[in-house]
């Protein structure tokens, strides 16, 4: 969260990890050091986060406290709540309007798409006025949408002629915000199609682009705008006792071009002011420079966290000598097993996993399957639950495109794929292989059944090619043939979700006042919580379950 103190707006990092259970503050609240911010589920133990002490003469000193779980018992697993650095990754990358990629001659600026399902926002702050020069990328207003307050950058450059909106007004996508002086060209801005379904630009990324645009507008290179620091000569050893203005015994660094207040701010938010690039005259470091540096640091830290050491290459604790306790055999793990180990470790380390469980009543679906079975057999395939699941998932992915996406942390973008290729985990004697069926949404159930049978056979016969296992956008894994009532599959990175099917069994279901024997299929959906919220996952899986339960919809589609 961001906190406004009397010093500055600071980003407060969480000092606990886990899934947020309950948020106990709201925006606009005054928050005291020590106040509980949210409770989190942390390996079963609940933890509370509280703001760490701010260096304020007025703030009562407060640091770590023993934390208590909501039930009142000591939460042994709760970590000490002292953030190492009071700056945190902005977890909510607010949806931002799409931005122009190059300078465009335009006579007006219209509000562009703000993000998924957001068609309007309230104008909270206007940053331009008639006669003001704007350049592409420069923030022109703050808009409050249902999701967040976003800064809207201009996608045009020129001098503002007329501002067509007022603070407090609700503004719709496509609405004209301001016009430019003396530009005769057509409003290209308004008609330019948005790239992809939605492009998310985070605050920092936006700020960087804005900065680049601004210095481009000034005709400077980034190097000129941000001259590299002067090399600092080695501090001279203190020698002359009469020399004043230097402190003996303390490590002495050359004076940094930042005012005492700015240096104190840096110290308080954990930034080494000597590392900060000053954007002021003569390289003077402003408060904003310090904050920008802090943000950049956080991004770097977040990026580093997102890119752990190469999967499978972690430094693992040394193994004991098992032979001490009995006979052992060492077998090479090269090949599929090693690949699997590496890949799954990478997935596990990259993706914050959550698994959603649900059940589908497939009594009716069984009848459908029986009906299609001969057809499929004729075509050389087998009508399995997996084949039907392919069809169901393809339909679901169209409704929920974020399950058919990939996160690009480096670019701070989400990549939505406009094709649906679904991998199906196949258990072979070489290990786990995942052949991918392409364009699942464009194929009917019989075609899918046939292709699945063929690919699975190829996998088992070791005839499958690498190309046939690439390009998946989603994965299905069916352990029902073996048994089980549910499991937590690992997302197949860089995909963002995987559906696991367990053994279906006949269970008594309470229907219309009596128990009826129904065939129930357990569903387990693991997903990347960075991209997918819990509620969306629940909705997605419910949608899938209902699709299984109303097979006529599928049969209509063939």
């Amino acid at each position: 969260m961001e906190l406004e103190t009397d010093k500055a707006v600071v980003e407060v990092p969480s000092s606990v990890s886990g899934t947020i259970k309950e948020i106990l503050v709201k925006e606009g609240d005054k928050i005291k050091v020590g106040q509980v911010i949210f409770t989190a589920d942390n390996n079963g133990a609940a933890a509370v986060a509280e703001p760490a002490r701010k260096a304020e003469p007025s703030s009562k000193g407060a640091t770590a406290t023993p934390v208590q779980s909501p039930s009142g018992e000591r939460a042994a697993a709760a970590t000490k709540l002292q953030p190492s650095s009071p700056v945190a990754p902005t977890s909510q990358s607010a949806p931002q309007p799409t931005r122009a990629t190059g300078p465009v001659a335009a006579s007006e600026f219209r509000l562009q798409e703000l993000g998924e399902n957001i068609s309007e926002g309230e104008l909270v702050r206007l940053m331009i006025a008639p006669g003001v020069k704007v350049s592409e990328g420069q923030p022109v207003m703050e808009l409050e949408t249902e999701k967040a307050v976003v800064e809207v950058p201009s996608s045009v450059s020129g001098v503002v002629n007329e501002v067509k909106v007022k603070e407090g007004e609700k503004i719709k996508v496509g609405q004209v915000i301001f016009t430019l002086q003396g530009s005769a060209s057509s409003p290209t801005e308004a008609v330019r199609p948005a790239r992809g379904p939605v492009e998310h630009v985070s605050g920092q990324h936006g700020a960087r682009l804005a900065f680049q645009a601004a210095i481009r507008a000034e005709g400077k290179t980034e190097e000129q705008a941000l001259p590299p620091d002067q090399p600092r000569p080695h501090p001279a050893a203190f020698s002359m006792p009469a020399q004043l203005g230097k402190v003996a015994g303390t490590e002495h660094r050359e004076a940094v071009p930042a005012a005492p207040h700015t240096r104190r701010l840096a110290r308080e938010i954990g930034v080494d002011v000597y590392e900060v690039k000053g954007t002021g005259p003569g390289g003077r470091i402003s408060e904003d420079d310090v904050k920008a540096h802090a943000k950049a640091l956080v991004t770097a830290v977040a990026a580093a966290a997102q890119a752990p050491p190469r999967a499978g290459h972690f430094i693992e604790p040394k193994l004991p000598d098992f032979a001490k306790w009995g006979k052992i055999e060492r077998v090479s793990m090269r090949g599929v097993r090693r690949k699997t180990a590496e890949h799954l470790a990478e997935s596990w380390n990259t993706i914050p996993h959550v698994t959603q469980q649900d059940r589908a009543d497939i009594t009716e679906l069984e009848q459908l399957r029986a009906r299609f079975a001969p057809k499929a057999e004729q075509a050389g395939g087998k009508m399995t639950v997996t084949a039907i699941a392919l069809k169901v998932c393809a339909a679901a992915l169209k409704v929920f495109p974020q399950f058919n996406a990939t996160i690009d942390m480096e670019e701070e973008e989400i990549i939505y794929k406009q094709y649906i290729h679904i991998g199906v985990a196949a258990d072979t004697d070489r290990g786990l292989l995942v052949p991918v069926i392409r364009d699942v949404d464009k194929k009917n159930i019989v075609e899918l059944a046939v292709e699945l049978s063929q690919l699975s056979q190829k996998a088992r016969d070791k005839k499958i090619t690498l190309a046939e296992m690439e390009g998946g956008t989603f994965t299905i894994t069916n352990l029902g043939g073996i048994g089980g009532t549910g499991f937590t599959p690992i997302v197949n990175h860089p995909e963002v979700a995987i559906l696991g099917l367990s053994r279906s069994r006949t269970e008594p279901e309470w229907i219309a006042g009596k128990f009826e024997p129904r065939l129930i299929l357990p569903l387990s959906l693991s997903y990347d919580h960075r991209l997918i919220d819990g509620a969306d996952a629940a909705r997605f899986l419910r949608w899938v379950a209902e699709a299984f339960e109303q097979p006529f919809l599928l049969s209509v589609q063939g």
Partner: protein
Amino acid sequence: MNETLITPLDGTPEDAEKLRIAVVGGGPGGYAAAFLAADLDMQVTLIDPEANPGGVCLYRGCIPSKALLHVAKLIEESQQSKNWGIEFPPPKIDLARLRTWKESVVKKLTGGLGQLSKQRHVEYIQGRAAFDNSTTLRISKTDNSEVVLSFDRIILATGSRPAIVPVFKLDSPRLMDSTGALNLEDIPGSLLVVGGGYIGLELGSVYAALGTRVTVVEMLPGLLPGADRDLVLPLHKRLEKMFAAILLNTTVASLKEDGGGIRATFEGTAVQEKDREQTFDRVLVSVGRKPNSEIPGLHTTQVHVGPRGFIEVNKQLQTADPAIYAIGDVVGEPMLAHKASHEGRVAAEAIAGHKVAFEPNAIPAVVFTDPEVAWCGLTETQAEKEKREIKVAKFPWGASGRAVTLDRPDGMTKLIVDPHTERVLGVGIVGAGAGELIAEGVLAIEMAALASDIAMTIHPHPTLSETVMESAEVFFGTSTHVFRPKHG
């Protein structure tokens, strides 16, 4: 569901209890630390042998010396006024009254500090402190009783004392250190000042003004070692007129009681044979100061004392013993009151848990002679030693209207500027009132001001402060009152 959490203050068992702090030494470092700690809601005990806080600075340092220097300046000006058509008879000096006045200044200020301690509920114990362990002090009170008290944190601000060189160990009332000189027992006919640092020159000036023939010996080739030579030069010229002699590159080989005075033997190439031995009514030894780090029982703590006797501290002024902080003269150069106070405040805040550090960009130094010499930040001498590229812009006071109205054109203001960023890295001033003027330089450096910032700031006319602005204009070659034809 979720209980409101009560968080205890860092390091204390109960949050209701205030942090207990002891400050050992009531000088400008100690009382500044004690007062801020009290303001930050700590329970503070301040320990010093004097009746009131003040330390060296108020009792036998900055304050009494400045009071006497004010008198010296008046005497000097009353003589200079001859040039302006105003003639005074030679001054009649009532030494007892002068001493009383000086002491009243000290009393007023130290009494005020005692008052401020009471108002802040700082417990003031008159006595000397020794360590029983890292957090326990055994205090021998001036009334001969003893108390043993425990604290959460202890700040050492024990200051410094005049250094004594073995050669000068002489049991003679004629031999003085700065404290003795400030006592002003008499106006000696002749005075030898050993050491050409600021204390020697300041006190030498006082005695010279009162009518004493003053000789200064300095081992190094110049007065005020460490200061830029161009700043020292106008002072040197004036002192040459005021003093009987200034002997540079000269050491004192011996001092001997000799009936009516102290006979000194000098060594050094600059000394002429006939001057090798001279007798003085009094001798002031001002060859530096030694930190008071020999605090009884200090070995029971983890405090580390460095090779030159300074207590070692980090940027939070914390010693190697986490419960003990140290500030002021006892932790290192520059041994100046304002450095001590600033450190005291940093230590108090650090103890309060604030993220602070003693990291000034500039510490001003002022020599209160006439003319005064003041500087801050980078000096030319230092830049040369560090091989740093700098540009120096100087404004001579001969071009300052104000300096001329004061009949004091013997001054100069200079800026030391980074040629690439044009940032002001250092400021040096010599001239009447330079000590007051230097504050602008300190602010400029702390704010990372550029030469243009200073040049474009309107300064009041006619004041000496204009010399700061005009030196910045000199940097750009556009000073109003200095014409430098452009070359080539």
